[in-house]
Structure formats: structure tokens, C-alpha cells
């Protein structure tokens, strides 16, 4: 009622501009799910007042407060309901230096496909070496509600500081999920069928504890990479940081048996980023062929000297769920030799047809590579295409699919080059990706003032129900060591 009373009126004396308005986040000509929360935005025209008129099938609404367009959540639901499969036309008016301007209208297309209700991400400063407060948060995309799944500050002290990372879910559900804790109270928190356990995945036979995870879709198995990771700093390059693996392998963790076995530990190969096909019969991963040439210096030193030579290709191995054996390893995308590129973070679509990955000139940590973009391979035709609608001039990484396969989410640094934000894009039935948009926030200036990154965004069809306090209690317990099993 209050909103209705204060609803702004569209100026009648506005001078027409031929260009689109500058709005943030950029929601012009995007395709959105009908169940998403309001796309509030700020008009960056130096205006004292703004008005936005939303014209949708069967009605129109106006909004505007100072320089922001804040849409009532209940009204937005009505608009979405009416616009499903249609579009909303947005006319923006801005009062600049006392005179109203009318900008070229833009459309917001409302897809008939819904989006998974939840996403989760790690909230972290664009970190270098130090870490203090880290949390894994879950966000309800149908509202602005955001909650912490786990905050490391619930157990961290100055001397037991804790890093948390790599949250992962089985089939987009949260009754089987995991994340890692490093340093203080280290271990991997694994939830299996709702039961929380803390496991130490490091064995004497493996390189490290599990790092990048991938839940098998049908079995109680998790593929991990194991990595020896280092970090160094560019003195001038705007990429600023290089994160490199001096060694990396792949392992398989049998959740039921609490056993770790090695999938691949080839010399001169840096295997990483495992991901399963939806039927669980193929394991995709990335690997870089890298031969150390100088025994007189440490591997870390040589890696720093030759960091641009490290380029990952995309591989696939067959997997027999019955015997748990891998076979027929083959490279399916040679990015290094043929293109001089490096492929990371592959993710297979829920229908098994496509595989998304992040590609840049070199290395494995594309979140810090401005040239990193999202590419997609059609696994039927083996054709690779760059998803221009999803990409920007800055880094895109961590691509992932929604459970329906109709939505893609990526980590993007397009806003400012330094802080990653989750962007969502529609992926239609014809295999075409549409323009990506930032996950909406109640305050459209939120991303400007929020000085942390959203890392590794993942879709979930349900929220994590284990409370942060329950995770904290378990975190303080000793981790159960995993056993090593020969394959």
C-alpha cells in the first residue's frame, strides 16, 4: 500500500535519448527465470531522480527512488507470473541537471524454465596468502535471503586459523555434500545421507588430501584431485597472482569404505579438476603435460620460471561403476598444442550433451586470468564454441549447470577485474547461451560496497539443513583418517 501511494509518475516532458541507460547491474536484454527475485538496479546517469516503467503482459508498474529502481517483491512475483514466456519492457527516465531524459527501452525476457532455488558460494576476499574470515553461504534465488552454511570463525582462533573451500553437492542435493577445512581443525566435512563426518583424506601414498571434488552421480564415490599448490606474484601484470600446481594427481574416495585409491598419478602430467558424466560412466578431467628440466633447482622455482608453459587439455576416462575401474583414457580436447590454450574446471551438463570449461592462455587458476573465458564442447559433435554471451573482457571461471541444464552460472570479474561475482545465463533448448546477468541483490549497489568475492558458485535444489553450529561442533572433532587401497 505504501509503495502504491509513493509510486513515481512517468515524466511527460522527458527528452528522448537514442541510447540505452547505464544501469548497474546490467540487466538489459537478459533472459531470466520466472522464479527469480526482483532485478533491482541503479541508474548510473548522475541523476537526482529516476523512474523505471515496467510494461508486461497485462499491466505496467513504475518504480524509482533516488538513483535506484527497487521493485517490490510481491509485485515482482505478479509481474513474473504474467510474463512467463514473454518479456517485460523497461523504460528508464532520469532527471539530470533538472531535466528529464527518456532512454531507449530495453527488454527483460522471462523464460518458461525455472531455476534451482538455491545457490552456494564461498565468500572470501580476493585472497593472496592470508585468510581470516571465510564462509560458505547459501542464497535463495527466489528472495534475497542469504545464510551462512559454515563460517570458519566458528572454530578459528589466532593460532588455529582455518581455510575452508571446495563445497560440493551430489546431484544438486544437500544430503550428500562436502567441503574442506585446511590448517586448524583440518579435514574434509562429508555429509552422506544426512550424516556428517569429518575425514582426513591424506594418506602416505597420496600427494595431499583431496582438493577439487566431484561426487559420482549414482555411487557413494567422490573423485578428487590431489595437489601441491604454490602461489607467486606478478610485479606489474594486472593478473597480479599466479597459483600453480607443481604436482597433481587424481584419487577416488569410496565413502562407504572410507578408502582412497589412486586414479591417475602419471609422471610429467598434472591431472586435476575431475568431473563425472551424469550417468557416472565417464570421468572428465584436465591434465597438463609438464616435464621438469632442471634438477638443480626446486620444482617450485622451475614452475615459476616456466609458468606460461603449463597448459591443460581436456581428458576423458571410462568408468565401470560395478568394478570401479577406469579405462580408455583419451584426450578429447587438445587446447595446448593446437591452440596454445589451457582448459580448466570442466562441468558436464545434466543431459550429458555439453561440457563447459574455462579456457585461457596458460595455467590452472583462471579466476586470476583476465583472458579466461567460458567455452563449451558439444560432446556429440566435439565442436567447441566460446560462449560470447556469457563472457566479458575480464575473467570468467568456475562454470556450472543448474539441475535442469537450462541455466549456467559462472564466476565473473567483469565488474571491476578484482572481485568475482556470480553471473547466471540462460541456456536454451537449442544449445544457445543468452546474456549473463549478476545474481540480483536487494541493494543494487551491494556489489560495489561488498569487498569480498563469491567463489565457486554451485546450484542446489534444496538448502543445507545442517546448521553452522553443528558443522562447528563436528569441526572440533578429530578427523577420521581415510585408508589407502590399491587399485
Amino acid at each position, binding site marked *: 500500500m505504501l509503495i502504491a501511494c509513493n509510486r513515481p509518475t512517468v515524466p511527460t516532458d522527458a527528452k528522448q535519448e537514442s541510447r540505452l541507460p547505464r544501469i548497474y547491474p546490467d540487466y538489459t536484454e537478459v533472459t531470466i527465470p520466472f522464479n527469480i527475485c526482483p532485478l533491482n538496479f541503479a541508474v548510473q546517469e548522475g541523476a537526482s531522480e529516476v523512474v523505471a516503467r515496467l510494461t508486461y503482459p497485462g499491466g505496467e508498474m513504475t518504480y524509482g527512488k533516488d538513483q535506484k529502481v527497487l521493485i517490490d517483491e510481491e509485485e515482482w512475483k505478479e509481474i513474473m507470473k504474467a510474463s512467463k514466456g514473454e518479456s517485460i519492457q523497461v523504460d528508464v527516465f532520469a532527471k539530470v541537471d533538472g531535466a528529464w531524459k527518456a532512454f531507449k527501452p530495453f527488454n527483460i525476457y522471462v523464460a518458461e524454465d525455472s531455476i534451482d532455488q538455491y545457490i552456494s558460494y564461498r565468500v572470501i*576476499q*580476493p*585472497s*593472496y*596468502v*592470508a*585468510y*581470516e*574470515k571465510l*564462509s560458505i553461504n547459501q542464497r535463495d534465488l527466489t528472495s534475497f535471503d542469504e*545464510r*551462512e552454511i*559454515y*563460517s570458519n*570463525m*566458528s*572454530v*578459528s*582462533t*589466532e*593460532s588455529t*586459523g582455518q581455510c575452508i573451500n571446495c563445497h560440493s553437492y551430489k546431484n544438486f542435493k544437500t544430503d550428500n555434500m562436502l567441503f574442506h577445512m585446511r590448517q586448524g581443525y583440518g579435514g574434509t566435512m562429508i555429509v552422506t545421507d544426512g550424516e556428517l563426518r569429518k575425514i582426513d583424506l591424506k594418506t602416505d601414498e597420496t600427494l595431499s588430501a583431496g582438493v577439487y571434488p566431484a561426487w559420482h552421480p549414482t555411487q557413494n564415490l567422490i573423485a578428487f584431485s590431489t595437489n601441491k599448490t604454490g*602461489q*607467486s*606474484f*606478478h*610485479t*606489474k*601484470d*594486472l593478473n*597480479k*597472482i*599466479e597459483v600453480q600446481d607443481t604436482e597433481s594427481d587424481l584419487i577416488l574416495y569410496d565413502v562407504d569404505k572410507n578408502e582412497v585409491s589412486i586414479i591417475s598419478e602419471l609422471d610429467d602430467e598434472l591431472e586435476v579438476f575431475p568431473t563425472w558424466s551424469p550417468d557416472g560412466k565417464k570421468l572428465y578431467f584436465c591434465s597438463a603435460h609438464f616435464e621438469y628440466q632442471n634438477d638443480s633447482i626446486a620444482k617450485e622455482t622451475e614452475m*615459476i620460471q616456466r*609458468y606460461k608453459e603449463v597448459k591443460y587439455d581436456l581428458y576423458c576416462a571410462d568408468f565401470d561403476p560395478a568394478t570401479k575401474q577406469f579405462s580408455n583414457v583419451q584426450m578429447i580436447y587438445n587446447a595446448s598444442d593446437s591452440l596454445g590454450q589451457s582448459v580448466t574446471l570442466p562441468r558436464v551438463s545434466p543431459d550429458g550433451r555439453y561440457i563447459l570449461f574455462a579456457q585461457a592462455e596458460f595455467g590452472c587458476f583462471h579466476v586470476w586470468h583476465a583472458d579466461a573465458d567460458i567455452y563449451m564442447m558439444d560432446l556429440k559433435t566435439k565442436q567447441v564454441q566460446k560462449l560470447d554471451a556469457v563472457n566479458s573482457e575480464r575473467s570468467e571461471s568456475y562454470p556450472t549447470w543448474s539441475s535442469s541444464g537450462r541455466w549456467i552460472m559462472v564466476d565473473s570479474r567483469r*565488474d*571491476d*577485474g*578484482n*572481485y568475482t561475482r556470480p553471473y547466471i545465463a540462460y541456456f536454451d533448448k537449442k544449445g544457445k547461451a543468452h546474456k549473463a546477468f549478476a545474481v540480483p541483490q536487494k*541493494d543494487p*549497489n*551491494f556489489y*560495489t*560496497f*561488498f*569487498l569480498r568475492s563469491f567463489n565457486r558458485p554451485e546450484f542446489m535444489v534444496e538448502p543445507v539443513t545442517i*546448521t*553452522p*553450529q553443528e558443522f*562447528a561442533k563436528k569441526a572440533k572433532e578429530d578427523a577420521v583418517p581415510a585408508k589407502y587401497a590399491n587399485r
Partner: protein
Amino acid sequence: MLIALAVTVAIAVLGGYYLVGCNSDVLFMAQSKSYFTTNPVFLRECMQLPGGFISWVASYLVQYFYHPAWGAGIMIAIWVASMWLSKLAFKVKGAWMAVLAIPVVCLLVSMIDMGYWIYYIKQTGYWFYGTVGYFFVMAMMVLHSSLKRKKIDRIITTTLVALTYSFAGWYTLLTLAYIAVMAIADNLQKPAQPEENLYEEPKRNPLLGKMVIVLFPLVLIGVVPLFSYQFYSAIRLEDAWTTGFPNFINDKMVSYTPEIPFMVLAAIPLIFPFLPKEKDLKGKMVWVVYLVTIALMVASYIWVDKNNFQNYNYHAELRMYRATEEQEWDKVLDEMGNIPGNASRQMVLMKNIALMNKGEMGTRMFKYNNMGEPPTNGFDTLAVHMVQTAAPLIYYYHGKTNFTVRWCIENSVEFGYNFDNLKMLARCALIGGEMDAAKKYLDILSTSTFYKDWAQDLMPITEKPELIKKHHEFDTVRELRDHMGTVLDGDNGLCEMYLLNYFSNTMNKDDKLLQELTLNYAMVQKDIQLFWPRFFLYAQLHQGEEMPTHYQEAAYLYGNLEPQNVNISNMPFDAKVKERYQGFQQLSQSLLQTGMQPKEVGEAMKSTYGDTFYWFYFFCRDVHSY
């Protein structure tokens, strides 16, 4: 009343003197290392901890230390208000104002005893947190005491206080403790009046009622944090009772000394309810009050003075940091010239930056005391690292903007974002051409009270990058950065060592400024092999110009030490350079022949030759970078 006013004035004077008179530099740095934005994101982040609202208000007020006298004035006004509120809340006669002033004295001590913890404190809004918290406590106590006639009122106000836990954390719990103590005092001082409680049946056991009034707030102290813990995911259960109490702790040690004022502050109001009331102050008791007042005032003065951290280098560093940041190079050099003992390495580096910007490295670099020692608090074992104090600024002026960004972020991760870091990040983004990042930082600073103008002055560059050329404050940094290559490396947390190694091993013939820096750092490294090629390159780039004294001194010294490497016989050294070298050698030899140790010889020769490269080369030893 006269005593109350006198104590109030004394507190104001004491606060004014020690805050503004002795610690203006500290207060300015305090606001520089703090953060506030009107955007709700910051409030939301504050509220993730119990007591978050106090953090938010305190952070707002800390901004006023930009003008130290303004901030101090606000702070003292809140202190005075708190004293008078406590008088009102506990119904204390004005004669006891000196006792009521003790918590305020604690707050004063907590402002000036920090030492190098100023760089390491993690509590958001620390500098005003205690002040706002204590004011909140006393305001709540006034509310409670004004409504406490009936037991039900006491229960209601106590419950209301408990509900403020998420806003005031530790200070809510303190308030509950004082309510309990006040109830005890009330029970001791007067029997229960039947008319006091309309809700209580006359036949009910009055002791039970008294116990409820005392125990209720105590139970809430135990229960409220326990219950609230379910809503806070970013605190440990065991910390739920102390969130808001400042800790001076890092991964190596805990310092309890700076916590003492807060412990005393918490404890002292527990005696307020037991101070003799007005009717008791008769005859000799009045004189007791006078004596207590004088004794407390004297003791307060002694305590404050004793805890006032007056390490010369600490304050000089703060002043030099500000002058360096504001490019007041003469001020930097004046501070360096006035240091009574050895400087810290941070000060030496800031001196180098000032000389570089004035183009006087070659003539004045070694005229200053280049000895350096790591800073210490004295009262604890806090290990101070330059990367956490001034490294972002030092890297910036060496053109190493990526390293500035790195340490701004690293330090923000550990100690929170602050205005100083955001300014550095904005500058680096502007210089690096990252205009969207620069706009982000400038947008944030534009919502601050005192950095708004600074941010808005630079904002046009984000739209028109070429405008940066009109901002001459960026000139030398841009020049150095533009002429550097990019490599992948790291500083291992040692800023000075990294800079020395990087620049002394760099050869650059494209830029005079960068080239001269490489020559100077080769001289600081005392590496003859590194020196000569950079010396000759300098001579080549500066043909027709006078060779600066220090470079002549180094060349003359190295030519004499290792004549087989370079023949200096044809070099046109100034007569004074040669003359002083001869004098230096003769004096040092003669002193050594007397049996003096080299260190003693160095000290003996300092007044005569301490301004030469010769002295630096032979006697500037045992320098510890940190």
C-alpha cells in the same frame, strides 16, 4: 557538586592533554586504519557479531579523528556524559565523582597505551568501541533505575536490556551484571516496602522476591549468549560471553597489558551501588571524600602518564607515514633529522622515498642515520612486521603497485578494510588503468565523512584516464612503474629486503629516476660488483651534470678498496671527497690502533664522518630488516 564539576573539568583536561596534546598522530592514524561507509553492507557486516551496532556507531565516530581535536572533543563529551549518567543511574552523590571517573580514565588509558597494536587490533571501531559501549551501559542503567520501583518494572527493563545483546554484546552483559549488583545493594540498604510492588501478594516471602531480582539478570547473563549463539555463525560458543571485549592477540602471543583498562572498567561500576549515599556524607566523611577524590585524581594521572606510549620512533613513524602519504617530503626529512637515536627501517625507507622525490638521493642519502632496528612495544613481545605497517605505502612509492595491492588486501583480510588501504588501492588501480576497480574504491570512499573530497577529486580519471597526467602526485610512481618489467616473484614478507634485492639487481637505461634508484640500492647493498655498472650508466645518463657527492664517495672508496677492478685515477673527484676519504682513513686507523673495537670507532667517528658513504660502508652494520 563542586567536586563533581572539578572532577569533570579535570577529566576533560586530562583527556584533552593526552589525546590531543600527546597523541594527535596516533588518533589520525587510528581513523586512517579504520573504516566506515553509510552503505548498509557495512552495518550488516558489523551485525554479524554480537555488539555489532556499537561497532558501527564507533566506526562512524572514529572518522572524526581525522581532525584529532574534533574526535577527542566528541570522545571527551561522551565520557563526561557517561560519568554523569552513572551518577544518575546509581544515585551517587557528586562528591564521589572521582570514583565514577575511573572507568573513563580506563578508556583514556586504552586509547594511549596501544603502541604498535594500532596496526594489529581487529575489533571494528575499537577506538570508540569502549566509549560508546560504556555510554550505552550507563544509559541503560539510567533507564533501569528510573523504572525500578516495582519488581515487575525491574523484570521488564532487565529483559529489555537483555534484548540488546545483539546490538551491544559484552556491554549488554555488563549492564545485566550491574543491574544484579544494584539489586543486591538495594536489598542490603533498605527493607522491601510492601507498597513497592503492587503485583506481589503481601504474604509472599520477600526474600524470594529479592532473590528473583538479583538472580534474574545473572541467569540472563548465562542464558542470552547461549541462546543467541544459535543465530551467530561467525563466533565460537566460548566467545559468546566476551564478544566486544577487545583482545590483543596474534598467532604468536597474547598481550594482557592493554586489556587491563577494560577489565578495570568492567569491575569498577560494581562498587557504584555501594558508595555512601548523600545522607551518610557528614562530618569527617566529607574530608574522607576530599582525600579520596584527590588520591584518585593523582593516581589516575600517574596511571595515565605511565601508560602513555611515548616511544619516540613510534610517534615519529606515524608522523612520517602521514607526511609521506601526503607527499610532504620536507616534513619527512625533518622528522628523520630529528630522531635522537637509531631510526626504524621503515623510517629509513620513507627517508629514501622523500629524497628520491626531491631528487637528492645522491647528495643526502647517507647524511641521515641509516642504522635501523625493529620496533618494539616494550610491554609485550609483539613482533612488528613492516608489511603490516607501512609496506603498502613504501611499495607504492617504489612503483611496485601490485605489491601494494597485495599487502593492502592481505592486511584487510586480517585486520579489516580501512581508509588508508582503500586510498592505496584506488591509487594503484588508477595508475594501473583498472578504472572500474578505481571507481569502486572511490565510490566507497565517497561515502566517508572526510575522504569524500579526495575521492571525488580523483573520480574524473576513471572516466578519462588521460586526466591522471594532471595529477602530479602520481608522477614518480607512474614513471617508476612504467619503466619496470613484470616478473613473477614474491617478497616472503620482507619488504625492505625485497626492494633492495630487486632494485640493486635491476639495470635500466631508459629512465633516470629508476636508474638512480638501482644505483642507490646497489650502494646500500655495499656490493661493489653491482655498483660499478650502475655508476657508469648514471654518469652516461647525466653527462654534463655534477656527480652527486655520495656517488663520488662510493666510487672513490671502491676504487681504492679494489683498484684492480676499476681505475679511478682519471676520474674528476671533488677535492673534498678525496680529502674526507683520507681523513676518514687516517682517523679510523689511529682509533683502531688505540685498541678500540670497530663499533666504538664507528661511534667515535660518527659526528665527523657520519654523513659520508664511507662511514655507512664500514660502520652501518647489524641492521635488522623486519
